[in-house]
């Protein structure tokens, strides 16, 4: 079943750069959908539409609709705070907040007004286990989060999104700064997480796209060129430009 339906989405920034051109695609529940392609293709912009983080940027026009569970999240009346609780995000560079490990995990719940210690503790333990970080940090939850290694920080960021019990998780090149071992850990946890969540991933390489994708969408200069199952798009792409990109002829 499709969790998200993107319908004729066109996005333009104030500086005149068109970022997305008439994009339509459905995003399946409990699967990893990969958005890939060369830089400037509009992948991150699309990601940032899905939790309305683009509100912070200079967006001039956003036409079309993004239906999440049947509701258009681009509607100005949308409760963006509730939306961002439902749609979590992990960024390219691990950005831990200047708080303790625990503080990072409970931050989202606390700003929603949750103050019960038991609820917060449960969320900390559950989310750390889901992100495969619990064993490494359970004894030092009150340490500053910045003391963690880069790979641990990024898993903490994943856990931080999970603590809010979202339904959709957006990941924007989550492993671009990580070593291969940490990358493998993050990728493995994504495969676990997709059982419960809808995952949309902008990978940092075509190889990662091919490894992770249940479905994959190829973006080129704001245009959705090809969208298919991961198995087929990386082996038998239909479009010539997709083929050129996945075989490494450009990009």
């Amino acid at each position, binding site marked *: 079943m499709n969790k998200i339906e993107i319908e004729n989405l066109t996005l333009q920034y104030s500086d005149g750069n068109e970022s997305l051109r008439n994009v339509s695609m459905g995003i399946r529940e409990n699967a990893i959908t990969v958005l890939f392609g060369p830089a400037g293709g509009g992948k991150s912009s699309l990601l940032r539409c899905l*939790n309305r*983080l683009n509100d*912070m940027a200079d967006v001039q026009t956003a036409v079309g609709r993004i239906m999440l569970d049947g509701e258009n999240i681009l509607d100005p009346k949308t409760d963006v*705070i*509730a939306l*961002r*609780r439902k749609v*979590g*995000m992990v*960024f390219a*560079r691990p*950005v831990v*907040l*200047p708080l303790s490990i625990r503080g990072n995990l409970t*931050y*989202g719940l606390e*700003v*929603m007004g949750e103050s019960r210690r038991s609820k917060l503790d449960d969320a900390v333990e559950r989310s750390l286990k889901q992100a495969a970080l619990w064993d490494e940090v359970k004894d030092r939850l009150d340490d*500053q989060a*910045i003391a963690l290694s880069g790979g641990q920080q990024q898993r903490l*960021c994943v856990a*931080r*999104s999970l603590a*809010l019990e979202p339904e959709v998780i957006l990941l924007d090149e989550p492993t671009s700064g990580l070593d291969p071992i940490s990358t493998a850990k993050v990728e493995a946890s994504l495969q676990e997480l997709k059982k419960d969540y809808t995952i949309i991933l902008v990978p940092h390489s075509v190889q990662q796209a091919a490894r992770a994708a249940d479905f994959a969408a190829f973006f080129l200069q704001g245009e959705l060129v090809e969208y298919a199952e991961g198995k087929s798009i990386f082996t038998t792409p239909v479009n010539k430009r997709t083929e050129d990109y996945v075989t490494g002829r450009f990009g």
Partner: protein
Amino acid sequence: MKLNRNLSQRLGFGLISLMATLTVIPIIVVVIYIITQGGGAISLQFLSGFPHDGMRQGGIMPAIVGTFYLTLGTAIFSVPLGVAAAIYLAEYAADNWLTRTIRIAIINLSGIPSVVYGLFGLGLFVLFLKFGTSILSASLTLSIMTLPVIISTSEEALRAVPQAFRTVSISLGATRWQTIRRIVLPEALPGIITGVILGLERAAGETAPILFTGAAFFLPRLPNSVFDATMALPYHLFVISTQVPEMPFQIQYGTALVLIAFVLGMNLIATVVRSRARARRQW
């Protein structure tokens, strides 16, 4: 050729470090001179007594207390206003003509000579608002003078907090205000405190703004309300240096020493706050 480049580099660095060293010399000389000339005047009686015999004898306690009151009064008005303005400028203000006008105004405010603030305070607070020559009028005048310093340093401190923290906080469902209060402000606080202290320090040492608005030549008692005038260290120093004949110079330098200790003490606090925060900072 290679030798030449290295040589000129060494010459250049040498010259620059010489210049840097030279800048420190005046402050050291001033401090040493004042300590040697005025150190002998410092005693418990000097710090805790009223002046008498036309201020040629006795202590400077009312001036110390007065400067403390004025600094406190200035802080009460200028800190909330200044920090709020900085938050608005750094976090909320759109980049439009209004914001640019406010910024230009702030920059220009800091360039106005302090005696002009004094005259303005006389007109607005003392006469028009009928606060009289008082601690209140003087504190308000000093506040206006201090505001630009507090606003621009606080704004800078807020802007130095990485944008990524804000993005992450928003993406976790926080409102912009929660983001500012829980993440941005705590991170910017050491910088803000430093700016506040630097601003107040200037207020504590100024004579001209309080000249017409709140400073008293001599008072036989301490002020007992904000509508009373008060003695103050910088004005007292001005008075005993220029207005009183046959003034023992030791008392003049003793007063200067106390004023400098007051200001440098605040500076020291600012430095400690800053270096502690730097050691703890993660970005």
